[in-house]
C-alpha cells in the first residue's frame, strides 16, 4: 500500500527462545539444526500422553532485576527480555524519539496462565487473603504489552491483539497500520508465550493436537512429514522495532529489512479446525501481496506456520501453493523451536527478516518423508541443510484457533 508515510522498515530484532537467549544465539542454533525440544521429567507428566515441550534456553527471571521479575508473569518476563534486546538493537532510544510517538503492539495467545493457575492453588490452599495483589496485572492478556510499554517508556499507545497462535503476527500487522496512519513514529511489536503447565498441556492433549513421540523429543516436531503427529508446546518471545523508512535512514539506523505489506482474514469455517484447502489462509497471503504491491512471482521464500499437526500442514501447503505457487523456498522452523503459540508469528518474522538479510533459508528439521499430499509434494521445502538463495521478498504466515489468518510480506532493505 502506497501512503504518504512511505515505506516501513525493521530496525530492531529481539528474541528469547528454546534455541537461545537472544537473536544471535537463536539464529545460530537454528542454522546448526539444533532442537529446543525435550521431555518433561516432572511427576505430574507421567500420566500425560504428550510429555514434550520446548523450554526456554535461559530462564528470563535471571535476565531481569529480581524484584521486577517477581511482579511479572513468565509471559511478561520473556516479553520484556525480547523487547529490550530489540529496542537496544534499533538504537531508537539514542535517537531522541519522543516517548509520545512510541507505541507498542504485543500479543499473547494464552496470557498469564501460570499466574492464574498458581494463584488458584494458593486460593484453594490458603484462602482469598493470601492471593497476591499482583495477580490481575500478571494474568491479564495485555500484561506482556504493558510490561514492554513500561520497559521502553512508550507513551504513544500500548495495544494487545489476542488471536491465539496468530497473535504475534497480528501485532506486526497492527504496528504497520499505526505507522501508516501516522499514529506513531516508532512501534515495537511482538509476541510472548509461557504456559508450560499441567492444565494447558492437558487441554491441548485432550484436543489430540500434541505430538506423543515421547521417546524421540528432538524428532517429534516434524512439519510436512508423513509421520507427523502433532505440535510441541514451546515458550518464549520475539520482538521487532518498526519505523518509517525515511526517518530510519535519516538517523542512520541499521535497516534489517522492509515490512512491505500485511493481510488478514478469517476462515468462517470452524472454531479450531483449519479450512481443509486453506481458503482463508490463501486469501490472507493474496491480500498481503496486494498490500505490498508485489506478485506471487516476487516471493522467494515462505516461513510457514506449519505446526506439525496432520490437518494444519496440508491445509497450509494448499494455501501457499494456491496463493504463491511452487517456486518459493518454504521452511518450517517450528521443527526446531516447537510452537510458541502467541509468540510464533513474531519469532518466525524475525527468522524471515534474517533469511532476507543473510540470503539464507533455514532447513526444516525431521522432514524425512514428505506427506503424499499433492500440495506438500509440489512445494520446494528446504530440508537437511540451510539453503543459500537470492531473495528479494518473503512471506511469513500465521494461523490461530478461531480461524484467524495473518500473512506478512517482508522485502530486503
Amino acid at each position, binding site marked *: 500500500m502506497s501512503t504518504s508515510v512511505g515505506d516501513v522498515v525493521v530496525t530492531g530484532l529481539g528474541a528469547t527462545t528454546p534455541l537461545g537467549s537472544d537473536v544471535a544465539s537463536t539464529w545460530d542454533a537454528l542454522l546448526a539444526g539444533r532442537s529446543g525440544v525435550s521431555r518433561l521429567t516432572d511427576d505430574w507428566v507421567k500420566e500425560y500422553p504428550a510429555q514434550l515441550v520446548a523450554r526456554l534456553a535461559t530462564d528470563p527471571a535471571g535476565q531481569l532485576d529480581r*524484584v521486577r521479575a517477581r511482579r511479572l508473569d513468565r509471559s511478561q518476563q520473556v516479553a520484556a527480555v525480547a523487547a529490550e534486546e530489540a529496542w537496544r538493537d534499533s538504537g531508537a532510544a539514542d535517537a531522541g524519539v519522543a516517548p509520545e510517538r512510541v507505541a507498542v503492539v504485543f500479543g499473547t495467545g494464552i496470557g498469564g496462565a501460570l499466574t492464574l493457575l498458581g494463584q488458584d492453588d494458593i486460593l484453594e490452599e490458603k484462602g482469598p*487473603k*493470601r492471593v*497476591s*495483589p*499482583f495477580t490481575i*496485572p500478571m494474568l491479564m492478556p495485555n500484561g506482556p504489552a504493558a510490561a514492554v510499554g513500561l520497559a521502553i517508556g512508550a507513551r504513544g499507545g500500548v495495544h494487545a491483539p489476542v488471536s491465539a497462535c496468530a497473535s504475534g503476527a497480528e501485532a506486526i500487522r497492527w504496528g504497520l497500520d499505526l505507522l501508516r496512519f501516522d499514529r506513531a513514529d516508532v512501534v515495537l511489536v511482538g509476541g510472548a508465550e509461557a504456559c508450560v503447565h499441567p492444565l494447558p498441556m492437558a487441554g491441548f492433549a485432550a484436543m489430540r493436537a500434541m505430538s506423543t513421540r515421547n521417546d524421540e523429543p528432538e524428532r517429534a516436531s516434524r512439519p510436512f512429514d508423513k509421520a507427523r503427529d502433532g505440535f510441541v508446546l514451546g515458550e518464549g518471545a520475539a520482538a521487532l522495532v518498526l519505523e518509517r523508512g525515511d526517518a530510519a535512514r535519516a538517523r542512520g539506523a541499521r535497516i534489517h529489512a522492509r515490512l512491505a505489506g500485511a493481510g488478514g482474514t478469517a476462515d468462517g469455517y470452524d472454531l479450531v479446525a483449519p479450512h481443509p484447502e486453506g481458503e482463508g489462509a490463501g486469501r490472507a497471503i493474496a491480500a498481503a501481496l496486494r498490500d505490498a504491491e508485489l506478485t506471487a512471482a516476487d516471493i522467494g521464500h515462505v516461513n510457514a506456520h506449519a505446526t506439525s499437526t496432520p490437518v494444519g500442514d496440508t491445509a497450509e501447503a494448499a494455501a501457499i501453493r494456491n496463493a504463491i505457487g511452487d517456486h518459493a523456498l518454504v521452511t518450517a522452523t517450528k521443527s526446531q523451536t516447537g510452537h510458541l503459540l502467541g509468540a510464533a508469528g513474531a519469532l518466525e518474522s524475525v527468522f524471515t527478516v534474517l533469511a532476507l538479510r543473510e540470503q539464507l533459508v533455514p532447513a526444516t528439521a525431521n522432514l524425512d518423508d514428505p506427506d503424499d499430499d499433492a500440495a506438500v509434494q509440489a512445494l520446494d521445502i528446504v530440508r537437511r541443510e540451510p539453503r543459500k538463495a537470492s531473495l528479494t521478498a518473503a512471506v511469513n504466515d500465521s494461523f490461530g484457533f478461531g480461524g484467524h489468518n495473518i500473512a506478512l510480506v517482508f522485502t530486503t532493505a
Partner: protein
Amino acid sequence: MSEDIQTGLAEILEEVAGVAPADATPEKSFTEDLDVDSLSMVEIATAVEDKFGVAIPDDELANIKTVGDAMSYIQKNKA
C-alpha cells in the same frame, strides 16, 4: 525488641520491594523515599502477618506512612 522488628521489617522490604536493608530506617516514607507502591504495601502487610503474627487491617494500613509507623504498629499489636 524494636531492633528485632526493624531487622525483620527490613528483610520483608528487601524481599518484596528490593529496598536495601540500610535504607529501611524509621523516618523513611514508603512511597516518597522507598518507592514502595500500594500493591507492594499489601504484600508487605501479608508478610508482616506471617513474620510477626500481626494482622494489619486495610484502614490501619492506610495510616502507615513510614517504616517507623509500621514498627510502632507491630510493637503495639504484637502478642
